[in-house]
């Protein structure tokens, strides 16, 4: 039985940049523990760990050092999904207060 403590949930939430209420933290604490237990069943399978790879059989997929203007966005396009902009920049709340 895994146990994801409320403290750990809080830490993960911080890393994931998620604001959670105290009630949510407790709820997720038991839910995440259950999820881990469920996935934990996989460890009962016999798997050759050497074969685990995120990449299938591909290697060396690279490109030449060439400028590809066909995919460059205009400033207007680049900013089109931004909540706030200012003189061509994306605008966010100050990092240092």
């Amino acid at each position, binding site marked *: 039985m895994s146990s994801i403590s409320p403290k750990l949930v809080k*830490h993960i939430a*911080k*890393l994931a*940049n998620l604001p959670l209420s105290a009630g949510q933290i407790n709820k997720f604490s038991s839910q995440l523990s259950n999820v881990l237990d469920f996935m934990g069943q996989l460890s009962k399978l016999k798997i050759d760990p050497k074969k685990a790879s*995120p*990449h*299938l059989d*591909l*290697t*060396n*997929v*690279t*490109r*030449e*050092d*060439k*400028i*590809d*203007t*066909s*995919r*460059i*966005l*205009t*400033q207007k396009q*680049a*900013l089109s999904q931004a909540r706030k902009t*200012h*003189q*061509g*920049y*994306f*605008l*966010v*709340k*100050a*990092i*240092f*207060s």
Partner: protein
Amino acid sequence: MKLQPTIGLEIHVELKTRSKMFCGCPAEHFAKPANSQTCPVCLGLPGALPVPNRLAIDWAIMIGLALDCQVNLKSTFDRKHYFYPDLAKGFQITQYDDPFSFKGQLKLESGKVIRITRVHLEEDTGKLLHKTIDGHKLTLVDFNRSGVPLVEIVTEPDISSGEEAKEFLKKLRDILRSLGVSDCDMEKGSMRLEPNISWSLSADKLADYKVEIKNLNSFRFAQAGIDYELKRQKALLDKGEMPVQETRGYQPATKATFSQRVKETAADYRYFPEPDIPPIVLTKAYVENLRKQLPQLPEIVVQELVKDFHLSLSTAQLLVKDPLKLAYFIQYNRQIDAQTLANLIVNKKIDLSHPPQLKTTTETVDPKIIDQVLKENKDVVVKYKAGKTSVMGFLVGQVMRQTRGQVDPKLASQELLKRLQGPALKS
């Protein structure tokens, strides 16, 4: 046992490739209109596929080779996660487990070896500008820099003073410039320095804390920042206090460091293999071919200039620092006396975009100078008379030197010829 200053360096260098690390946007971003050089890949839009720049990989490996590193024949890229507005994707593509190279070294003049931990390749982040607009403190983000190839060089904590750090950094910069892979222009941010500093028992027995300094944009500031930090920490330790592990900024005006409230915790970056980029697998032959392309290391070139052309050490070092100047010197040192040419180049008295054209303020050569040169070089004159006409270049060079390059070399040559073919010299 006694505590000693223990300093490691992290150096970030932007490569001067044409295009970015994982997409075809231009890598040159200085003074370009904000957010005018982005695409779905470097903006981190969903579904975009990053494809590594082959030249950037070659250059990263060459940097490793120049620093005497071992090369990983199988390298992978990883994702490093953190939330910060300069990082559109929420993660940075970098290398964690298998960097391109590792375990190198760089020797200081004293013979002291600074070990290199690793040299890896990653993508630069966007640029942040902190401003107050209409009374609100805000941060502006420009992603033109996002995705520019960035090489990170990490040393072991083998450095023991600000001065040693400065020497190491200068040597490193000279090497990188001679490789032609980066401008290393600190004002433009293409070379960035982050020392981490503590008082420890030894490089292998580190203290329980370390302090990192950011925002150092010159070697002088790096040296001063390190020295300040060592003093500050020593004072605390002497009082029995443990310095706080933190990131500090450096203020040139006060030559002091100050605590920065940095929000990232002792980072849980959740590294994992970048699933979109298959591993880079190299053959030994491929790596050896890159090694062959390495230019001679600056130190060796300096030694050769001093030995072959009798340049002063400082002149040779100044030439080697700038690949353009060095190339010019190598191309034209047969036409003009090497020392004269080197001085003209170093003192910026010559236009590097044209072959050397010396000011010919004098239409004639003072016969006394010709006399003097011939007298001082009797052995050379003997060689000339014995049929070794190639020594003429040397004699012309001597005349050029005596006249500080104020005469036309052709004229000097004519005058010398007249004398050499004329009556024998009176001794």
